[in-house]
């Protein structure tokens, strides 16, 4: 892991050029296979060295949901934003639904609606599907077998998340029981002093 000084190793250069040329993020396995069946461990070492090398530069190597790609350094956004903004604006409903799916996944439409207290129009889910951020994740084995939704690697990629554990505040929300259904929270709180229900975990 030489990183910053001296010549980069052969493998490091190979991974660098491959990720640079690829038009989509790549997993370690995809890199190893593309480079002719390397050991994934070696590829991981090269990625770590590369990420360190690029850490202070104007371009960075990042991992998003198990896939790696180069992107511009976030602190230089102001240099690029002006003419390049290409992100669609999401409605408030869509951002809320996306957050609910990300923090609760997999989750059914009924569960989304019970959190929001309002019906979700089909269009909202369609917009998120079309953006490639959510996907159908099977059916819940309860009466009616509702379809359930989950986020995709493209979601993690777009929002700069290495994994779902990086969702802002997810640990605090979970610790506070705010990701549990109301019924569960009610049960938990009724077992204790109702006046302190909100502090129970």
């Amino acid at each position, binding site marked *: 892991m030489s990183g910053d000084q001296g010549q980069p190793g052969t493998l490091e250069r190979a991974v660098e050029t491959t990720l640079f040329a690829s038009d989509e993020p790549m997993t370690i396995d995809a890199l190893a296979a593309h480079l002719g069946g390397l050991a994934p461990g070696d590829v991981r070492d090269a990625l770590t060295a590369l990420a360190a090398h690029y850490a202070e530069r104007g371009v960075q190597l990042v991992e998003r949901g198990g896939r790696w790609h180069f992107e511009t350094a976030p602190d230089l956004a102001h240099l690029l934003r002006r003419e390049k903004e290409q992100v669609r604006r999401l409605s408030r409903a869509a951002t809320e639904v996306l957050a609910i799916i990300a923090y609760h996944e997999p989750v059914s439409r009924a569960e989304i609606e019970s959190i929001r207290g309002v019906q979700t129009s089909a269009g909202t889910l369609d917009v998120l599907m079309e953006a490639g951020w959510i996907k159908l994740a099977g059916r819940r084995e309860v009466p009616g077998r509702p379809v359930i939704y989950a986020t995709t690697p493209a979601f993690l990629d777009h*929002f*700069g998340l290495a994994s779902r554990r990086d969702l802002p505040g997810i640990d605090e929300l979970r610790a506070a029981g705010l990701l549990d259904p109301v019924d569960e929270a009610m049960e938990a709180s009724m077992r204790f002093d109702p006046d302190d229900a*909100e502090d129970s975990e």
Partner: protein
Amino acid sequence: MSDPDTPFMFPDSAPAGTRRDADALYLELDGWEGPLDLLLDLARRQKVDLRQISILALVDQYLTYIERAGAMRLELAADYLVMAAWLAYLKSAMLLPKDQQEDPSPEELALRLQLRLQRLGAMREAAARLMGRDRIGRDVFVRAAPEGLRTDRKTVWRSDIFALIQAYGQVKARTAPRIYLVANRPVMTLDSALERVSAMLGVTLEWMELRDFLPPHASPELKRSALASSFVAALELAKRGRAELDQDAAFAPLRIRRLKEVAPV
């Protein structure tokens, strides 16, 4: 009832400036997605942690809002009114002495409402933080013109020596000169059938079945051939005006007899 300067955390919810004072609420009927949304907004105006909001005060705010909206003759969606009715019930229950309260207790209902508001509030905040991250295409950019990775498919052909010589043997066997033998099959020719049927027709003027014309001791295959030939012979004789044919139904016995006014040939 509410502080006009309450900061709002939901940038997308309404055009800036419309919430500067309480009256502005009425201009925003479409600004809330359902009663829970409105309740959360009102709760936030209490400027306390959602866990410490006064449900009673919240109920009052909501009912006041609905009343004023009604006074301005604004049409309210049914779910706002259902919520209003439910909150009015909750309020009256909470005002009753403990021993007269029903089950589930108003405290329980209030707690449930509070939990729901907390969850919605948490998700709304999470959504805002998510949207505030460095997003690809807005804050960070991937390479605009990547060279791309290409996978060329190459076919590697495989065969073996046995397949090769076997194929050659088959070509040779297939194209070798062949001698064909045609089996000598027992048949009755059309000519002999014509002769035979004509001769037998000469015997009588009665209807006869075609099958009776067949050679009685022939082998099965000769019989088939004879039947076919005799049938064609019968048709030929009918065409020449020397016989007539009769059949009751398809596949029924075919009968034949000599025509009386037969012209001498």
